[in-house]
């Protein structure tokens, strides 16, 4: 697990390489980015994800201004268990996504078991295409389609997981000018997945789990969903 992980984790990048507006990788304060108009938060997680999602969703207010899409790797015949669990721990409306569902702010859209979740402008699509890196739903598929649909308006969040799904997608989000948060691998039940994202691209923040929710609230303050 995480055998490929490089040694320079936890924001060991030299400060001279930091992009403008970012003082340090682990600095939780939001600087210029909060002035941007974000449109969508996309969260990917795998092993250990249930608890991580619970921690994040507990901190998000009912009037959170953006829609949130979530891929949590789950067994192909699992059903209402995950949405029910998250509903208990969230003030937001949590749904198991139906094909061509319109995207609304303040709503959490879960990728259904055994389907890929793809983001289009204003609506969500599903597919039963082959698993990507053994995963369906795949975090990469969701991230890449979100980046294609909403460009720099996407905030990608990579949480705990024992594989490297999400790394390619995080790279695409960054290419399109979006924002990427990785859970600090040291605080992850399974560090491999956030570590893979950190290795694949220059993520904007590496944050301990309990700070991700409050950070998102801060980051999205001032953003308004346009559809």
């Amino acid at each position, binding site marked *: 697990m995480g055998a490929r992980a490089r040694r320079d984790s936890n924001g060991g990048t030299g400060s001279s390489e930091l992009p403008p507006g970012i003082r340090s990788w682990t600095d939780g304060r939001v600087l210029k980015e909060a002035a941007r108009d974000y449109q969508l938060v996309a969260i990917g997680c795998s092993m250990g994800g249930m608890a991580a999602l619970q921690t994040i969703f507990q901190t998000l207010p009912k009037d959170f201004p953006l829609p949130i899409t979530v891929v949590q790797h789950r067994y192909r015949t699992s059903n209402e268990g995950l949405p029910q669990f998250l509903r208990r721990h969230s003030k937001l409306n949590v749904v198991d996504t139906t094909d061509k569902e319109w995207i609304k702010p303040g709503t959490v859209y879960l990728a259904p078991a055994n389907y890929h979740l793809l983001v289009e402008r204003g609506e969500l699509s*599903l597919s039963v295409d082959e698993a990507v890196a053994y995963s369906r739903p795949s975090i990469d598929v969701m991230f890449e389609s979100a980046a294609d649909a909403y460009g720099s308006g996407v905030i990608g969040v990579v949480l705990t997981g024992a594989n490297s799904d999400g790394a390619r997608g995080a790279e695409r989000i960054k290419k399109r000018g979006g924002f990427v948060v990785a859970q600090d691998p040291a605080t992850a039940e399974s560090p491999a997945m956030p570590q893979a994202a950190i290795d694949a691209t220059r993520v904007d923040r590496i944050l301990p789990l309990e700070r991700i929710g409050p950070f998102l609230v801060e980051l999205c303050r001032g953003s308004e969903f346009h559809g």
Partner: protein
Amino acid sequence: MSNSPAAIIDEQARADLEQIEIGLLTEGIYKHYGFDFRDYSLPSLRRRIWKRVYAEGLSTVSGLIEKVLHDPQSMERLLLDLSINTTAMFRDPTFYLSFRQKIVPLLRTYPFVRIWHAGCSTGEEVYSMAILLQEEGLYDRCRIYATDINEAVLQKAKSGIFPLSTMQENTSNYITAGGTGTFSDYYTARYDYAIFRPSLRENVVFAQHNLVTDASFNHFNVIFCRNVLIYFNNALQDRVQQLFLQSMEMFGILGLGKKESIKFTTVADDYETVDAEERLYRRVR
């Protein structure tokens, strides 16, 4: 891996161009070959096109346009990429359980039952339905029309031969779906393959039919179209739902994929819900 503002603007321009190229590709394929992918849902279409771009050793969608328009064999390969939907026997087992419990009693009252399985792909779910109907003693008065856009997958479906490696999943699905027999009785294992009993396809007609461009060809008591419409955009979903409505007997049953809904289409009021969770609907007007 520079993500400078200039690089991000370049990336946006590249994405805009890609969208133009995809439009040209689907337009060209439609005009030259008659296959209409113009109203397919964009994100899945984009992924599938790029898969073919790389597989052909190309680097742009424009390159693929030239390739498929001048080389029918590469068009065949693209067609496979764009039209194969992966499936399994008794996919979403609770759908079959619900069909057994809620729809089969209705069908018993009919002297003859016509079933259309639209977009049957490699046929796993056709054989599943045949097994279910045999176990319920209904198969002899049923005729299943199994159609797909793709001739190559229909050949596979006709053969009734599936990889043995999938039988573990299929067996567990069969049990959850309320199977009353022993799943392995329905096939013979030969090397790496499971060969299904020919009696299962005795009342099945396999035929090529394109949901996007072909018309209605019969009236049916049951229409299945599972995990096919998800690849279409809203406008095309509406058109295909109208085609199903035209092909549906009054009180006929529509069965969709687990996460598909008629709620967002123009036929929503023509059906009542039989099982909301399993997406089984009944035509009422």
